[in-house]
């Protein structure tokens, strides 16, 4: 598509064609290309071929999981009831999707209009991350069709997971609402946008509340496991704070990573405002990240002191723990600081990648690797890995689909 753009093609950004007639929805979906041109560009994209290969292997396995059960797709471990689907799909995806509430807060609550050009990408990153966390959950649940039971059929309100269920469900609807303006611009509907604008502050604040609580609650889930999770990763008092605080830089760093990928691979879709502001916004987010990172580092150390776990640091687990903190927290923190000092957005992007990987490592450690540290290591079944890759690929496909169409990284011209 970038090549097409270089040859003078411009994707749909307004309701009317050059001759004054309206684009139909179908034409908008094709980005203003004729069907033949559209499919030709899709066909030529090497990334689509990779996706096709993943689907060719992964989709049958995914279908098989629902026909033959979890026992067929996973090791059906009684000792490791949660595997990759939740370890990766829930515990890693959700903190990396905290960008939605962070950008909402920055722009709508604190009035930082200078981040406006990244706000919608932040919201979309949030919405899709949560949506696919729920998809992963549905793959993992024994009886996914009973998903609404904790809401309406049999309530266990004192359980941490009850809170996660309610908050993720509520927050998903908040995020859908926050993205209604983008959709209504694209569809040419005025009223919904106006309505959302009128309640945007309420939406933003409920977003903060819900995010604080469910990001924390994901950590809270592991406070049930004092005898199973390694003491260095376990903290009865601070687990929720660790998860919440790390989601702040996790979400923002993911936003930097995603915006960088967008700039590289979907430049044709970005407008000048987005591209011009991107370095400035990246460095601004970098400041937020470095503040969150230093806070997180300190409260992680406080947790070790609080439970007097210094002795563990000298064990093999301790080395692994220190590696996680050094590579995933200290390194991005220092790099972010250097990037801000030298106004070097590229360095901030590299720091963001490290921070994202650091979050992933921390959540995987908590959910799988340092879990059952007294027992044995569980290596996921290949089918489980394949399903996780397939669902994550779908996340990328949907992400790209929306990004190419809705006014997320470009502004819609001419409301009508």
């Amino acid at each position: 598509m970038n090549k097409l753009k270089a040859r003078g093609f411009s994707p749909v950004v307004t309701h009317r064609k050059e001759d004054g007639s309206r684009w139909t929805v179908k034409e908008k979906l094709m980005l203003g290309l004729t069907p033949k041109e559209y499919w030709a560009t899709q066909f030529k994209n090497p990334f689509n071929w990779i996706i096709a290969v993943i689907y060719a292997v992964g989709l049958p396995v995914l279908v098989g999981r629902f026909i033959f059960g979890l026992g067929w797709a996973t090791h059906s471990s009684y000792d490791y009831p949660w595997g990759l689907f939740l370890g990766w799909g829930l515990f890693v995806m959700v903190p990396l999707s905290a960008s939605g509430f962070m950008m909402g807060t920055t722009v709508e609550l604190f009035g930082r209009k200078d981040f406006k050009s990244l706000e919608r990408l932040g919201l979309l990153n949030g919405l899709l991350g949560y949506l696919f966390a729920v998809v992963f959950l549905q793959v993992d649940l024994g009886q996914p069709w009973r998903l609404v039971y904790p809401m309406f059929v049999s309530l266990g309100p004192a359980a941490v997971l009850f809170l996660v269920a309610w908050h993720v469900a509520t927050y998903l609807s908040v995020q859908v609402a926050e993205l209604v303006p983008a959709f209504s611009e694209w569809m040419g509907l005025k009223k919904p946008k106006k309505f959302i604008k009128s309640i945007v502050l309420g939406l933003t604040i409920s977003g903060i509340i819900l995010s604080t609580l469910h990001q924390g609650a994901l950590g809270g889930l592991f406070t049930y496991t004092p005898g199973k999770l390694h003491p260095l990763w376990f903290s009865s008092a601070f687990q929720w704070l660790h998860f919440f605080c790390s989601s702040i830089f996790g979400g923002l760093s993911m936003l930097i990573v995603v915006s960088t990928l967008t700039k590289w691979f979907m430049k044709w879709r970005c407008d000048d405002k987005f591209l011009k502001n991107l370095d400035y916004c990246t460095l601004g987010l970098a400041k937020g990240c470095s503040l969150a990172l230093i806070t997180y580092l300190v409260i992680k150390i406080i947790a070790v002191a609080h439970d007097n776990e210094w002795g563990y640091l000298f064990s093999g687990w301790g080395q692994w723990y220190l590696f996680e903190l050094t590579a995933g927290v200290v390194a991005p923190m220092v790099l972010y600081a250097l990037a801000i000092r030298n106004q070097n957005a590229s360095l901030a992007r590299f720091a963001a990648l490290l921070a994202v990987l650091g979050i992933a490592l921390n959540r995987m450690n908590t959910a799988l690797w340092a879990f059952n540290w007294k027992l044995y290591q569980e290596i996921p079944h290949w089918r489980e890995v394949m399903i996780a890759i397939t669902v994550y690929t779908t996340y990328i496909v949907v992400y790209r689909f929306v990004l190419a169409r809705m006014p997320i990284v470009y502004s819609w011209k001419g409301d009508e």
Partner: protein
Amino acid sequence: MKKINRRSFLKGGVAGTAAVATTGLSSKASAAGDFGGYPDSMGVLVDLTKCVGCRTCEAACNKEQGLPAPDLPFDDFSVFDMKGHGGQKRRTSEKEYTLVNRYDIPGRDKPIFRKFQCNHCQEPACLTSCFVNAYTKTKEGAVIYDESVCVGCRTCMVACPFYVPTYTYSSAINPVVKKCIMCYDTRLKFGRPPACVEACPQEVMTFGKRKDLINLGREKIKRNPGKYIDHIYGEKEVGGTSWMYMSDVSFDQVGFDTHLGNQPIISYVKDFLAMVPMVLTIWPALFTGFHLLSNRKKANEEKENSKS
């Protein structure tokens, strides 16, 4: 940031409050004092020194609970040498709610056997972690489970400090949790001991009121100086369990986790649960305040400009 007038601000506030009202229901912090268990609940005291590893209890459980036939017959003792994942000893599964493992202790002339099943905690972690309330601690002492509401999140399996609940992963249509229910439906409810207790030829297990069993155990320790470890496992562990154990070798040598502490699992979660209603009530005002403060300067500047 769009300009906020009083009316739209109030509307925003209402949406926020509505979100709080709906989600507020979700966060009942159960920070009540510790629950010491039902006063007359029943329990079982297991004397490991008496067990000879005949596996009669396993057979009795299998029959009572209508479980599928085992891979190896119950009189096959090669199972004691079986090693599971990661060199682990045998563990319970969806097909066996109880089993006996052999431990060869250096210096002890005979091996010691340990029976494993749900310990039926006073404050069960499975129960407190379940978001559909599938678990019940009955007044008789059993921890039972209602499979008709189970969603299959398996948090109970994660939360159980004893690795007790298992899951019928093999079923695609109706997978459920399987674990020992102390024969609640068929026996305990009517005041009768669980099948494994009754079947034991060695009288390893004593069924009775939990508080009487604790006294009995202490008495036994006192009457046989030097025989038993001076500890009844389960009297205090994770808030106390209905099944308790006596042994003549230290408990960590026979596969018991001796680092679980005496707090019920839920007490580790209470720090988080207590914070939930605070966030729900404090955050809206706090962040609305931040918003007003951050826009204050702008408003003041506009005022100044209009004056001059």
